[in-house]
């Protein structure tokens, strides 16, 4: 039981740090609350869909920005999509970069867009690593016979 308690404390501390660092916001907590015995893997499933979505959209943005004549509307459409899904999952840093990114698309500023693309790629990688660590901690607790603490 001590091992489970220790793991649960580690999970709570790690989860709290993700919110404190501004990587996740309350929307992620809302998603965790939606998870129940009928859909025990809901958060992992949504996160996986988000990762796929992000990678596809980031590739689309990169290809569009490589073109001689950049179609800023096309770039903006991808950024808008990414802003939407990052907002829905609580990925606040990714969302914030998308807000700045859209301004550069509107201004048709290629250099600004490229900087934002680099930033959003970085924020996405960071988020993915952090979430995968969180999910690993969850799996360890469950494997040890414990339950996942609810973070308010």
């Amino acid at each position, binding site marked *: 039981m001590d091992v489970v308690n220790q793991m649960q404390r580690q999970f709570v501390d790690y989860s709290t740090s993700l919110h404190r660092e501004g990587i996740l916001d309350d*929307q992620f907590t809302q998603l965790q609350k*939606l998870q129940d015995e009928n859909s025990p893997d809901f958060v992992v499933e*949504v996160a996986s*869909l988000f990762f796929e*979505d992000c990678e596809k959209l980031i590739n689309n943005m990169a290809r569009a920005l490589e073109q001689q004549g950049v179609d800023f509307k096309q770039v903006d*459409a991808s950024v808008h999509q990414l802003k939407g*899904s990052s*907002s*829905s999952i609580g990925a606040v840093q990714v969302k914030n970069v998308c807000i700045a990114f859209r301004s550069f698309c509107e201004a048709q500023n290629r250099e600004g867009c490229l900087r934002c693309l680099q930033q959003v790629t970085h924020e996405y990688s960071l988020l993915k690593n952090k979430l995968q660590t969180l999910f690993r901690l969850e799996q360890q607790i469950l494997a040890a016979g414990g339950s996942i603490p609810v973070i308010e």
Partner: protein
Amino acid sequence: MTALVVDDNMVNRTIHHQLLDNLGIENVAVGNGKEAVDIHCSGKAFDLILMDMDMPIMNGIEATRKLREMGIRSMIAGVSTRSMEQEIREFIEAGLDDYQEKPLTVSKLISIIRKIN
């Protein structure tokens, strides 16, 4: 109560589906406005439609307008990341009963459902 989720983004469709499921609302999800119109043409009806605004093929504004022209009287709630009044005015004028800014939460969904009841 039954609901139709109309959103081109899989992350949002999954979240909205789960929100509705948790409230005991049977629901179906489609990926754009044209699919929303087609499902109604096939004879299906819903008490609530959660309509995204920006979608390929047929966006939420066109789909809402079309559904109202078809005589669909379901509650249509626009759900989008748009927040500027002028951006959402056209959406509302197309025939929405409510509009909620994403992300959709349990409390926003309950406030939509209260309007049906």
